[in-house]
C-alpha cells in the first residue's frame, strides 16, 4: 500500500493493532465450533455431559463414538451412495452445461437468442415445489437414483459462467479449425474444452460440492434407505435423533450417553473429506466467485 512509512500516526497504529486483534477473535469464532466438535467427539460421554463452561480439551478420552459410527452400515451405505451421486451427477452436469453453454455462445444464429431468453427466464420464475415434484414422479423417477441426477442437470447460473468463458475464446482459433473442416463437436472437444479447462474445473468443484452437500431432493424423491446419500443419514442422526442401531443395548446408561458423542463423531466423519480437500481447492473456488461476478 503506502510506500512512505513516515506518515503512520498513532491513530493508524492503534487501528492496525485493533484490526489484528479483531481478526484473531474472528478466527477463533470461525474455528471454535469445528474444534469443539472434534474434541467433543473424542470425549467420554459422561464427562462431556457433566462439563460446564467452555471446553478447551477433550473431557476424558474415548474412541467409543467413532467405533460406533464407523461400525454403522448406514454410514457406509451413505458414503458410497454419495460418491456415486457426486461422480455420476457431476459428469452429467458438466456434459449438459458445456453443451448448453457452447450452443448459446455461438453468434449469428437466428434462434439462440430465443433459447437464451427461455433458459434465463427459469432463473426468475418456476412452477414451484409440487408441480416440479409431480413432473419427476410422472417421469417414473420417484425413488430412483436418477431423480438426484437428471432434474438438476444444469444450474443456469453455472451455465452462464461457462458461456462467458466460451464467448471469450478468440474467434481465430475456431475459424482455422473450421477451414480444415472440423465439425462443431470436434471444435468443442479439441479446442474449446481444453482452452476453458480452468473454468470447467471451477464448475466441477461447484457441482461436486453441491452433490456432496445436497439432501433436500433426496429427502423428497427417495424412499429406500439403500439409495440415501450420506446427508440424509446425517439428517436422521443429527436432526431427527435416530441413533438407533448404533447404540445397540439401549438399556445401559453408557449407551444412552454415547448417543451424545456419536453425533459429534458423525459430523466429523461426514465433513472430513471436504476439510481435507478444501485447502488445496480453495483458490479455485475463490476464482469461481470472481468469474461469476463478472456477468451475474
Amino acid at each position, binding site marked *: 500500500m503506502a510506500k512512505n512509512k513516515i506518515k503512520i500516526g498513532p491513530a493508524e497504529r492503534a487501528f492496525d493493532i485493533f484490526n489484528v486483534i479483531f481478526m484473531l477473535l474472528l478466527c477463533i469464532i470461525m474455528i471454535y465450533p469445528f474444534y469443539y466438535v472434534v474434541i467433543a467427539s473424542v470425549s467420554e460421554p459422561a464427562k462431556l455431559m457433566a462439563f460446564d463452561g467452555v471446553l478447551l480439551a477433550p473431557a476424558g478420552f474415548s474412541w467409543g463414538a467413532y467405533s460406533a459410527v464407523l461400525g454403522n452400515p448406514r454410514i457406509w451405505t451413505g458414503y458410497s451412495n454419495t460418491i456415486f451421486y457426486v461422480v455420476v451427477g457431476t459428469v452429467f452436469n458438466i456434459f449438459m452445461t458445456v453443451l448448453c453453454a457452447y*450452443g448459446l455462445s455461438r453468434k449469428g444464429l437466428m434462434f439462440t437468442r430465443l433459447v437464451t431468453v427461455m433458459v434465463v427466464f427459469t432463473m426468475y*420464475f418456476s412452477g414451484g415445489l409440487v408441480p416440479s415434484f409431480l*413432473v419427476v414422479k410422472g417421469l417414473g423417477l420417484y425413488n430412483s437414483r436418477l431423480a438426484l441426477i437428471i432434474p438438476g442437470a*444444469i444450474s443456469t447460473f453455472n451455465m452462464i459462467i461457462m458461456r462467458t468463458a466460451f464467448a471469450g475464446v478468440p474467434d481465430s482459433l475456431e475459424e482455422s479449425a473450421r477451414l480444415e473442416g472440423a465439425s462443431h463437436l470436434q471444435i468443442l472437444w479439441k479446442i474449446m474444452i481444453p482452452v476453458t479447462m480452468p473454468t470447467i474445473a471451477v464448475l466441477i468443484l461447484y457441482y461436486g460440492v453441491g452433490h456432496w452437500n445436497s439432501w433436500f431432493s433426496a429427502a423428497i424423491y427417495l424412499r429406500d434407505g439403500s439409495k440415501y446419500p450420506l446427508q440424509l443419514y446425517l439428517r436422521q442422526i443429527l436432526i431427527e435423533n435416530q441413533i438407533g442401531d448404533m447404540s445397540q443395548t439401549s438399556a445401559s446408561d453408557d449407551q444412552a450417553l454415547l448417543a451424545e458423542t456419536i453425533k459429534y463423531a458423525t459430523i466429523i466423519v461426514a465433513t472430513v473429506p471436504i476439510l481435507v480437500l478444501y*485447502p488445496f481447492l480453495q483458490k479455485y473456488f475463490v476464482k469461481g466467485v470472481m468469474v461469476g461476478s463478472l456477468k451475474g
Partner: protein
Amino acid sequence: MSASTSTNGGNTGGSSPRATRDTSFKARAIRDIKKNYEIYLILLPIVAFYIIFSYVPMGGVAIAFQDWRPGRAMFGAGARWVGLKHFKDFFGSYYFLRVLRNTVTISVSSLVFGFPAPIILALMLNELKNKYFARGVQTLVYLPHFVSMVVLCGIIRLFVRDTGVVTQILGFFGFPAQNMLQNASLFVPIYVISGIWSGVGWGSIIYLAALTGVDQQLYEAAEIDGAGKWKQTIHITLPCIIPTIIIQFIMRTGQILSVGQEKIILLYNETIYETSDVISSFVYRKGLLENNWSYSTAVGLFNSIINFALVTVVNKISSMLSETSLW
C-alpha cells in the same frame, strides 16, 4: 421452436422491410437451420431439458386452480376447476399473515445484519499489513461456507440446546439455561447469526475482488494531500466498490420474499412455528407432507409471482438510478 417458425412463416412471399435480402422469415429460418444444424442438434437436449423440468411444471401450476389429487386429470374433461378457491383459503387463513410476517422478518433481519458484514470484513482484511496473515484469515473465514446445511443445522442444534456450548457461554451473562430452539423469540437471531457465521467470509470475496481493482495512485495522491486512513476509506475505497455493493443489494432485495426452506426445515419444530414457519416451508409441509397438492401449489404460485415482480421492479429502479442493472 420449429412450430413457431412454420406458423410465422405461413404467409410466404410477404417480405419484411427490415430483411436485407428479399426473403421470408421461413426461408431465412430454414437456411439458418440448415447451415447451423449442428448447433441446433447440440441445443436440442438442452431445450428438451428446460421444457421438461422448468416449463412443464410452470404449466402444472394449473392445479392451483383445481381440486387435484393423484389419479385425477389436470387438463381436459376430468379436471375439476375451482377457480381461486385455494388462494382465497390461503389469504383468509391465519397462516397467511404468519408465514408472510416470518418470511419478511427473517429476510429483512438477514439483510440488515448480514449484508454489511462481508463489506466490513473485506475492508478490514484489505487494511491488514501482513499479507500472509490476511491470507490465513481468509482461508479460515471461507471454511464454514463448505459445511453442508445438514451439518450446519446439526451443529446449531447441539450448541443451542440446554446443555449446549453456546447456551452455557450465554449462561455466564445471566442467560437462562434452555433449549433455545424451543423458544420462539430466539429463532430469528439463531437463524441470522448462524447465517452470518457461515456466509460472511464467502460473501467478502466479491468485495475483496472489487478492492483489488482500486487504483493505488489514488491513495498516494490522497496521502500527499494529507488525508488519513479513515478519510481515504470514505472518499476513495467506498466509492470504488459502491457499484459492487449496489448490484449485491439489488439481488438481495429482489429475494426478500424467498427464504429457502432447507435451513428452516432442519431447524424448526412445531412449538416455534409462530416465528419460524416461512412461505417455502409451509408450501413443503402442506404439499409433500400433508398432500394438499392444489393448496400448496397455490401458495407456491403466489410466492413465485411476488418474487418475480420484486426482481423486475428492483431491477427497473436500479437501471433508472444508475448504469448497474441485472439485465
